């Protein structure tokens, strides 16, 4: 067995072990930490599969922002105290276990029954890269060949933020999401929140920009921008904006909105919905992505900030 194969077997074993541990452990806090480590190791698996774009997203969402979201949920659950009355009964638990096992078995069966070699559109996607002028096949698929999916995905993000906001109490509607964070102004966290964002913003924009030709893109870059924003919020350097602000709502709809406008333009001037004229394909895609990175950064940041809790006054 070569070193690479041994590494892969060890990685797969650790990921499986972590997955089982995350399910089996009783403490929600420990399960969250296990899940974050699981996300980072799954990102390594994606790197081994040469899917660096997916690895970046997995590390940013599964390991980073998803972890922060779950940690916040775990902290709230702990504050609320144990609610023994709400613990599910034996029937519910057995049914959930059976359903989970059936789903896992169906997934495993689907993977094992795949024809070998699996049907793939990858060669076609690579062969038609010249149609858009972008060299990264993943960006081509996301922004051109399957642009419809990406647009709808951004609409789903918008629906998610509306879902979070709808948890706001009546008097806080349109107000600031989450608590106002306070930190020692001369402390370490504030120092980091002053030092890191300039670097993080450059890295985020670089990852977005390089996504045209190398692994990266608006989602990964947007996640980094969102984390820089959240760092400043958590250090108390800035407050979350009231969700009723018009500029904020404009940013939230900018990405899917521009996508939709360009799509309708394709219907009006060109062949079909979302059909870009080949000569303008690259500038159009970049324009949509600029709007999208702002939308994604704002949406992810606000999703983590939570429901509005404090009214503007």
């Amino acid at each position, binding site marked *: 067995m070569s070193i690479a194969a041994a590494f892969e077997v060890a990685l797969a074993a650790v990921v499986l072990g972590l997955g089982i541990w995350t399910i089996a452990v009783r403490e929600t806090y420990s399960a969250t930490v296990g899940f974050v480590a699981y996300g980072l190791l799954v990102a390594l698996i994606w790197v081994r599969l040469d899917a660096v774009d997916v690895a970046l997203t997995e590390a940013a969402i599964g390991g980073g922002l998803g972890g922060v979201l779950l940690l916040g949920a775990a902290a709230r659950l702990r504050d609320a105290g144990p609610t023994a009355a709400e613990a599910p009964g034996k029937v519910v638990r057995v049914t959930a276990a059976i359903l989970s096992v059936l789903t896992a078995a169906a997934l495993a069966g689907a993977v094992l029954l795949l024809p070998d070699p699996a049907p793939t559109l990858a060669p076609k996607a690579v062969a038609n890269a010249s149609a858009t002028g972008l060299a990264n096949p993943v960006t081509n698929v996301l922004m051109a060949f399957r642009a419809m999916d990406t647009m709808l995905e951004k609409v789903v993000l918008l629906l998610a933020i509306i879902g979070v906001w709808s948890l706001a109490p009546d008097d806080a509607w349109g107000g600031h999401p989450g608590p106002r964070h306070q930190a020692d102004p001369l402390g*370490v*966290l504030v*120092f*980091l929140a002053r*030092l*890191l964002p300039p*670097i993080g913003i450059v890295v985020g924009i670089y990852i977005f920009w390089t996504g045209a030709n190398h692994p990266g893109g608006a989602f990964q870059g947007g996640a980094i921008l969102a984390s820089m924003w959240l760092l400043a919020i958590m250090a108390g350097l800035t407050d979350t904006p009231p969700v009723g602000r018009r500029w904020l709502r404009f940013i939230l709809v900018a990405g899917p909105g521009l996508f939709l406008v360009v799509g309708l333009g394709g219907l009006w001037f060109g062949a079909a919905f979302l059909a870009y004229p080949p000569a303008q394909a690259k500038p159009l895609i970049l324009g949509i992505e600029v709007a999208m990175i702002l939308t994604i950064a704002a949406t992810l940041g606000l999703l983590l900030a939570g429901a509005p809790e404090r009214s503007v006054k």
Partner: protein
Amino acid sequence: MSLVRDIITIAAVSAGAFFFLAGTVGLLRFPDTLTRLHALTKADNLGLGLVVLGLLPQATSLRDGLKLISIWLLGLLAGATVSQLIARTARQGEPAK
């Protein structure tokens, strides 16, 4: 030349791996939070630093080398900040002597 580069890489990455191993053993074996943090920072600072140092001769361009070094610097910054924050929280939690 490539032999010299490979020898530097193998030596430095092995030394880095040793510090990661030592840091992990310390994390598992040391008695309290502060000493465990002490062990962990050795893995972050020295281990990652030596691995980056070992990978530098393999970098194909100056840009790749600078990227590697900035990863190490960002790792240092994150490690130093987080261990300070954890240590402060741990000291607040323990009874005053």
